[in-house]
């Protein structure tokens, strides 16, 4: 293992921002892969999985099991992680909205540029992402259709669902899109609830990353097969919104198969305690995401249910 400095960025008063990477199998001429951990200060689960992966790979390297080249960068925005912020603490910009970066530009553009430079030339790339809303979700692969996406390697993760969809305009400045355009077979694994660690999801994601490396000849180990991933397109997702605001009480977990008519959650008035609403499943399917804050806004998305609608 080699511990390297990806970038070192001075601050007016704080200790410098150091972004570190861990390289395994550096001398290998085999297949290469890079993993990106936490890009936001609230993506703690992603940090946890990435640092756990470093520890795992260190052991595998000692056992001589690494046959490709692996880079893991557990944390990018350590400044935010160290002070409970989500984005870059000074100007609140999101590093994952700055790609491919600009070396002569603003601070987070420069950080993105330096990071992106270090990610060039890898065959595969996996970004560990948290959510961009107040939800939590079943771990899934997010693969955007840039025209350069590679669904086969996404399948090798063996996760239950691959959300395969067109990109939105803001995703053109995010890492996955740009990494794909620059020739790396990149995808994101989205999981957990921001600001927390979910050990079950983390273990599932860790297993998926190891499986991908095993299947792609980067790790010389046998891994259990995962799921034959279901490709989920936007039309396969049913959105259940809260008609009322109040205290939200979910009765199911992510990943649970539900039946039409089943009560998934309740909302009560936050002041009077009056029972305002039962949220029921309008369709059979699997709960993939749910609202993860005890206080819910009117019309917020309480649950998302995946069903094989587009396959019918």
């Amino acid at each position, binding site marked *: 293992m080699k511990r390297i400095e990806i970038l070192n960025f001075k601050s007016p008063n704080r200790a410098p921002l150091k972004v570190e990477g861990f390289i395994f199998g550096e001398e290998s001429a085999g297949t290469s892969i890079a993993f990106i951990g936490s890009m936001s200060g609230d993506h703690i689960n992603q940090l946890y999985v990435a640092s756990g992966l470093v520890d795992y790979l260190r052991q595998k390297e000692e056992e001589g099991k690494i046959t490709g080249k692996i880079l893991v960068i557990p944390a990018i925005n350590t400044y935010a992680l160290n002070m409970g912020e989500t984005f870059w603490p000074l100007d609140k910009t999101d590093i994952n909205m700055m790609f491919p970066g600009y070396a002569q530009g603003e601070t987070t553009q420069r950080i993105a540029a330096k990071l992106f430079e270090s990610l060039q030339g890898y065959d595969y790339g996996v970004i560990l992402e948290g959510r961009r809303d107040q939800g939590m979700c079943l771990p899934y692969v997010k693969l955007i259709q840039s025209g350069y996406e590679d669904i086969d390697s996404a399948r090798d993760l063996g996760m239950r669902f691959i959300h395969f969809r067109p990109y939105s*305009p803001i995703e*053109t400045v995010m890492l996955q899109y740009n990494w794909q355009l620059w020739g790396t077979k990149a995808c994101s694994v989205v999981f957990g609830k921001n600001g927390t660690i979910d050990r079950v999801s983390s273990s599932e994601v860790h297993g998926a990353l190891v499986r991908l490396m095993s299947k792609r000849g980067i790790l010389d180990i046998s891994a259990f097969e995962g799921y034959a991933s279901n490709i989920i397109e936007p039309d396969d997702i049913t959105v259940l919104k809260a008609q009322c605001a109040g205290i939200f009480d979910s009765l199911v977990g992510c990943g649970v198969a539900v039946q039409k008519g089943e009560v998934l959650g309740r909302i009560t008035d936050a002041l009077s305690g009056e029972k305002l609403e039962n949220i029921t499943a309008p369709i059979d399917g699997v709960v993939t995401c749910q609202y993860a804050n005890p206080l819910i806004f009117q019309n917020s998305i309480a649950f998302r249910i995946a069903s094989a609608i587009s396959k019918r």
Partner: protein
Amino acid sequence: MGVIEEVFSIDLPVGEQFRIQRCRYTPQSGETKKRISIVSGIHGDELEGQYVCFLLGEWLRSNPEKIKATIDIYPAINSLGIDSITRSVPFYDVDLNRIFPGSKNDFLPAQIADGVVSAMSGSEIAIDIHSSNVFLREIPQVRIAKSQADTLVPLANKLNIDFVWVHDAVTVLESTFAHAMNTLGTKTLVVEMGVGMRLSKAYGHQLLDGILNLMACEGFLDIAPLEVRMPIQSEVGEVAYLNASCPGLFVPAIEHCQMIQKGEIVGEIVDPLSGQTLDEVIAPIGGILFTLRAYPIVYEGSLVGRIFGENG
């Protein structure tokens, strides 16, 4: 007297509503479908537009007989953010101006965006007033994507602003309010002026004159056009960006909105700890310093100014 209407409302969890209000002014007699929307507060830390909305409302209340069409004033789109010094949508930490046109089936910020678009669609013209953020001070200017220049530059020239900046199309800006509205056929101008969290009274009065002139020229008001200044056009010159070369405290050497010669000192970056001057920010071209940093703490890459210099 204008009529105050609520155009969007969502219950918050505990005994409150998130709401967007407008004040609508209509002709004293006769019906009209002609409509203009004046918008501010998409970013909760930008308050210059609030003052312009007040000045315009004050003028319309005093001159109701001059009103020839519907004039809608929306002072506070991100009302939660404005009342809490928060740029993004609180709770979600999402920049509202990066999720347009929004959706009824997405999280709260996207529903707000959808509500804004629904309320304003059908307007012939919209003027979206932004301050700069808290970091930069700007002269009154309109920014226009090149693809919209033919339609929007003639309108912008009526607004009594100092600068019209036509820029290349950037995909991420397709998520802005202005892009969404222009796509729907509402000619939408984005004004930037002043600095975040503060009011620049003179700029407010300057833009008020411009809005009155535009409304006179476009048939919304029955008044003679005002004498307004002709803005500098970006296409006759170039914009130079001044980024900090190192972290520290930026101390400007000249006032905002001054003419500057190539090679002159714009400011210094100093180190309060050691007492050293770390760098001098030098003007790379001569011209008008139309952007100047207002918040003195800088990192490497922080924008400290912009100069517009005419060719030749």
